[in-house]
């Protein structure tokens, strides 16, 4: 198991054929909930493991930021997927996805309060106790802000990372989206985050819709996000950067061009 390195792509069944044919690929991420904990692995993933490509399970439904304790069965599943894939680490979000018996169907933001920091740290500790490998935590993109934030984003994230010892999965598109929608400076946030803790970075596309920038993962990566990749790498280049695409898959040539542009922005070799 080698850590994530260079330029990677989110493995999805719809683009398994495309991913399988990327000659320089050393690293992919897979949605953990989509990988069975027993029985055969999805075909394309098994092939990538045979090529010694690093596969990082990325959880989306643990709800680490939920006020209630994280579901042990979900943690156990993530742990078993990490083991099956011989993953060097797993990743999840600083977010909650359900509350009061209702599924939100998406990642929702926490209030940046001491109470929420305590809740997420307790859940990360519960997960860490069962996981065979380190966890990297990803700050999300959100349109809503809670009315009573006590901490700013950098202090909130740094405190969670310090208290849990977790790694950081920095999503550059989320930094762009939040700054754009809040009228803040994305570089100011980069300057205050512990960039030496970044295990890898996410990069994705989005679109303007109704006056907001939406981190859709179904649109091309905008130039502003690639510029932010360059600014991040100028400060501290992450060991790996991963392109996330979750629908409206473009023709292979376009996806290849996006991977090449990401490699160029980060100064890593092309994987195509």
């Amino acid at each position: 198991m080698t850590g994530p390195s260079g330029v990677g792509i989110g493995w999805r069944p719809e683009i398994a054929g495309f991913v399988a044919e990327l000659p320089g690929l050393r690293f992919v991420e897979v949605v953990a909930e989509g990988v069975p904990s027993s029985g055969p692995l999805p075909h394309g993933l098994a092939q990538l493991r045979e090529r010694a490509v690093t596969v990082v399970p990325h959880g989306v439904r643990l709800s680490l930021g939920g006020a209630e304790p994280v579901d042990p069965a979900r943690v156990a599943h993530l742990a078993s997927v990490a083991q099956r894939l011989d993953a060097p680490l797993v990743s999840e979000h600083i977010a909650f996805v359900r509350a009061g018996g209702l599924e939100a169907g998406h990642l929702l933001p926490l209030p940046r309060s001491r109470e929420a920091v305590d809740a997420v740290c307790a859940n990360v500790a519960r997960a860490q106790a069962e996981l065979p490998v380190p966890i990297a935590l990803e700050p999300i993109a959100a349109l809503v802000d809670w009315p009573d934030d006590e901490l700013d984003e950098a202090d909130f994230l740094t405190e969670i990372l310090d208290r849990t010892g977790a790694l950081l999965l920095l999503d550059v598109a989320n930094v762009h989206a939040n700054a754009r929608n809040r009228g803040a400076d994305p570089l100011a946030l980069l300057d205050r985050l512990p960039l030496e803790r970044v295990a890898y970075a996410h990069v994705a596309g989005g679109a303007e819709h109704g006056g907001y920038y939406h981190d859709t993962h179904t649109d091309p990566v905008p130039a502003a996000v690639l510029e932010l990749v360059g600014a991040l790498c100028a400060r501290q280049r992450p060991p790996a950067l991963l392109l996330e695409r979750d629908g409206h898959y473009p023709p292979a040539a376009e996806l290849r061009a996006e991977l090449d542009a990401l490699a160029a922005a980060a100064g890593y070799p092309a994987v195509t």
Partner: protein
Amino acid sequence: MTGAPDGETPPRAGLAERQAALVAALVAGGEPPAGFAPGPLAATRAALLRKRAGEVARHWPLLAASLGAGWSTTFANWAARRPTVGSLRDGWDLARAMHDQHTLPPAAAEELAVREARLRYDGLRAPRPRRVPAVGRAGGAVAVQIAGRVRLLRPAPRPSTAPSFHGEGAPDTAGSASWISD
């Protein structure tokens, strides 16, 4: 500022309650929680519905395709106050509701008939494969399942494109495959 006893922070709902209120406001038509700006809340609600519509369309491609440009709105109107029970069941519930209202397009009726033949779904719990031969019907479409294989026996009637004398022209079967893989 407020004179809370012993200098403690004034009582307020705990994180669990406040998270529940936010989710309810976003997916179940709950009251917007106090203090949240309405614009971002509405934008989040709309984004969640678009995302759900996309996920349901992957499970119900003919339902989504047969509604064309109207899919997102149809789904959003139906789903705005209904929290998701998973994309398969969301689409199933919507297809049945449209069927009951006689608004289910023919291709979507065929998709529904095939599903009804393949799986047993009581509207409450996860659908389960049928063990015995079964017939699924929706909007005039008839599908039959034997030993796990499903065949569309009869396509749903298409309204004739050109009005004919008798109102109901010969069924236009163009484009309706007799087999729909599920």
